[in-house]
């Protein structure tokens, strides 16, 4: 946790709770309920700056000691984990049975499953496997009043009761404490191959994304990085991308799909190559680096995939112009992108955020990290959603005294 984390300095004074069992976590929440203390849940701390700084947190409840795999049933392809289990260590265990959680979000070594659920994290595999809401099948939570509750279960197909696991995805610790989570798993692909398009403009990236679908290709991961262009003054957005399309699965299918995409590219005069394992690793490492390297400012953009050119020019372009050492990872099949960089003049960055929001009125620009002076100038979440009254009602029912990360979420929830 750094002092630049946008008003999170106050957390240093908070009392730390580090329960090692669900029972201890429940006791901690009951104590806080009795003493009317405000709580912030802490996982790996990788997205602590997401949202507005919570008001007057008195207790930091860390999941670092809740790190047991509660149940792993390879034959049923499900795993139940305590909230503090780290993504990378879970993947190691699953790999021994030839399986994986189809989630390749950043900071896998540090990020915890509870935190990943709370922040709705994702990586390039989302294009094929969906997001956490498509992988989560059960949850046990502890409410603000210290009541333990479960929803969902440990079978993938289950429509008994409300789907509260989905409600908890992305709720940022404002509705309850995520104690254990159950996920569905997928087989680890036998092999993989990446087709690289080293230099495309935004419209060509959009066309490739569309062509993938029209050609019935089913890539396992798709990501575009801003081309390492620019001038001596540093990276500047020149509207050009480096696009990687990874096919994964059984050898026969992977080979056929890569060939088909290369043929398509030739027909469209897009420069493309099927790259070897080492070059592929280097591309995906650049992707990871662009997502993970520490940055004073980080924002997530969402729009319709086919609007990529407009998003690139108006939204990504204006943020690049305002940031120092800017970088961008774009997921063109999803219509999602992350832009990061350092803030030189807060007013310029805030203005660029506003410009980006105006450029994608049907989408969103959410600030994941920014210094306080940027936060003071623009709302980190953007305009309140139309359903805010319902969201407020849900918060009111589950956390009536506003003790769970108060003020952190959308609309001051």
């Amino acid at each position, binding site marked *: 946790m750094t002092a630049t984390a946008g008003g999170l300095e106050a957390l240093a004074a908070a009392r730390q709770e580090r329960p090692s069992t669900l029972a201890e976590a429940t006791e901690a929440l009951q104590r806080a309920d009795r003493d009317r203390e405000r709580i912030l849940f802490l996982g790996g701390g990788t997205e602590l700056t997401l949202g507005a700084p919570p008001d007057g947190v008195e207790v930091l409840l860390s999941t670092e000691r809740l790190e047991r795999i509660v149940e792993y049933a390879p034959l049923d392809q499900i795993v139940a984990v305590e909230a503090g289990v780290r993504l990378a260590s879970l993947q190691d265990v699953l790999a021994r049975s030839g399986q994986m959680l189809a989630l390749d979000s950043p900071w896998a070594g540090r990020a915890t499953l509870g935190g990943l659920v709370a922040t*709705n994290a994702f990586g390039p595999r989302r294009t094929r496997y969906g997001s956490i809401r498509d992988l989560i099948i059960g949850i046990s939570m502890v409410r603000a009043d210290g009541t333990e509750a479960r929803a969902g279960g440990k079978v993938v*197909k289950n*429509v008994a009761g409300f789907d509260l696991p989905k409600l908890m995805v992305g709720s940022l610790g404002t509705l309850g404490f995520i104690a254990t989570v159950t996920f569905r798993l997928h087989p680890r692909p036998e092999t993989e191959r990446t087709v690289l398009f080293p230099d495309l403009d935004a419209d060509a990236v959009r066309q490739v994304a569309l062509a993938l679908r029209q050609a019935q290709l089913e890539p396992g991961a798709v990501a575009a990085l801003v081309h390492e262009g620019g001038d001596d003054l540093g990276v500047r957005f020149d509207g050009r991308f480096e696009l990687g399309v990874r096919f994964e699965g059984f050898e026969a299918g992977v080979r056929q799909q890569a060939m088909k995409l290369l043929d398509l590219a030739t027909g469209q005069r897009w420069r493309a190559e099927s790259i070897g394992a080492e070059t592929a690793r280097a591309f995906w490492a650049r992707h990871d680096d662009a997502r993970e390297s520490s940055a004073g400012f980080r924002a997530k953009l969402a729009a319709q*995939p086919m609007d990529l050119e407009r998003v690139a020019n108006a939204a990504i372009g204006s943020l690049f112009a305002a940031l120092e050492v800017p970088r961008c990872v774009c997921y063109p099949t999803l219509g999602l992108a992350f832009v990061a960089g350092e803030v030189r003049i807060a007013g310029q960055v805030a203005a660029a955020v506003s410009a980006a929001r105006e450029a994608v009125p049907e989408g969103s620009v959410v600030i994941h990290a920014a210094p306080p002076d940027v936060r003071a100038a623009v709302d980190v979440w953007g305009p309140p*959603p139309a359903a805010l009254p319902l969201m407020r009602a849900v918060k009111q029912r589950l956390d009536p005294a506003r003790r769970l990360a108060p003020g952190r*979420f959308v609309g001051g929830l």
Partner: protein
Amino acid sequence: MSAPSLVTPAPAVEAIPAPPSVIDRLIAVVGERNVIRDRDDLRTYECDALTSFRAAPSVVVLPASTEEVAAAVRIAVEAGMPVVPRGAGTGLSGGALPVPGCMLLGLSRMKRILEVDLDDGWIRVQPGVINLDVSKEISAAGYYYAPDPSSQSVCTIGGNVAENSGGAHCLKYGFTVNHVRGVRMVTSTGEVVDLGGPVLDPPGYDLLGVVVGSEGTLGIVTEVVLRILRKPEATRTFFATFPSTDEAGLCVSEIIGNGIVPAAIEMMDRLAIQAAVAATGVDWPDVGAALLMDVDGCTAEAEHTSEVAVGIARRTGALEVRVPKNEDERMLMWKGRKSAFAAMGRLSPNYIVQDGVIPRKDIARVLSEIARLSQEQGLRVANVFHAGDGNLHPLVLYDARVPGQEKAAEELAGEILRICIRFGGSITGEHGVGADKAPYMGEMFSDADLDTMAKVRCAFDPATTFNPSKVFPTPRLCGDRPGPYHPHATEVAGLADRG
């Protein structure tokens, strides 16, 4: 709590007439012919596909737009009437069962496809659109809508959203909830709100995720944005017969254990095979079990996985493996499977369709427990199920003319749910809780679990206007403070008793 009445055709509760002022106001909104209040006409709506529960609504309203739905809801709220939504009435759990004194909102007139965006991969439809019509609309362009409940040629998208419907192909492609990007919904205050939309990850709570599958208890959905998919390049299908469900179950486990994610794997036991043969004329042999499996994807992958899977079937004891020679043969195989429920009528005068889920690895153990119960009760149980995800559909066969058989069948069907709970599964994989399984919710979930769900329900609908007495085992009031349990008004009046 008494066992639910799964089959006994309860005498329909007579309609409580709606006040004339309510009728007049509704007519002003939707027109004379779309307000049904004649006693005989109302009977059409007194149950859904679970015919053992019946109750006549006070009035049926057939709105044609979001605005009309909102106006009707406001009228109901002001009159203190419960509101029960209904799609095509194909639900198997009594989700569209009227509650006494209710306004039933029939959404079948709202069947327009509003907007198609193939390039961004979505379609916006009204709730009364038939599931299969979504795929038909976009089929020529090579796209389809993935969730495929067996009733897909008649059931509506609105009903699918309410029930979070599945289907044979949800093993690979997911359920309705994985394919709904957004809804427009009329809230319990009669306001119109959009949850989600075509763009991913809108800031805020994922209320959409809770609304899908909430069985009409949180709001009335009037528009739905669905994700649409490009048809896969190739599909390979095979049908394999086995001496018993043990070998067939082992085959399923091995296929999945080999890293294959089939688009669908369906299992049928001897009775189910016999019924399908009798009903559809498929030339399936009289064997202990059969598997019907689809793999899809790019051609090379589909061919590879199908080859591996066929090899596994042979190795695990398949008597015969058939590969359809053309699309017609393939469709006939699927027709045999999809008609299996209705086909039971050929084997037995009456039957109960059950829906439960177990961990896949326990299929053999659970089937032998079901067989034991079947023997004890002297009742036949046919098994048709989505083997890939452990979703069982045991069909309990009985003859209502034989004294005591119906009750025994009900008990057996209930015991099967208890087996599912005991093995860590679920009391419903796709048919929903509705009125039918509400009494079992307390066996699957603790009071605290249900209380947490009820809190969410209260956030959306504090007066319990929408579809009361569904999903939850005990009607609840939404007090603003925690306190002693208050019985619901309908319970006090003896109307919500399920005995």
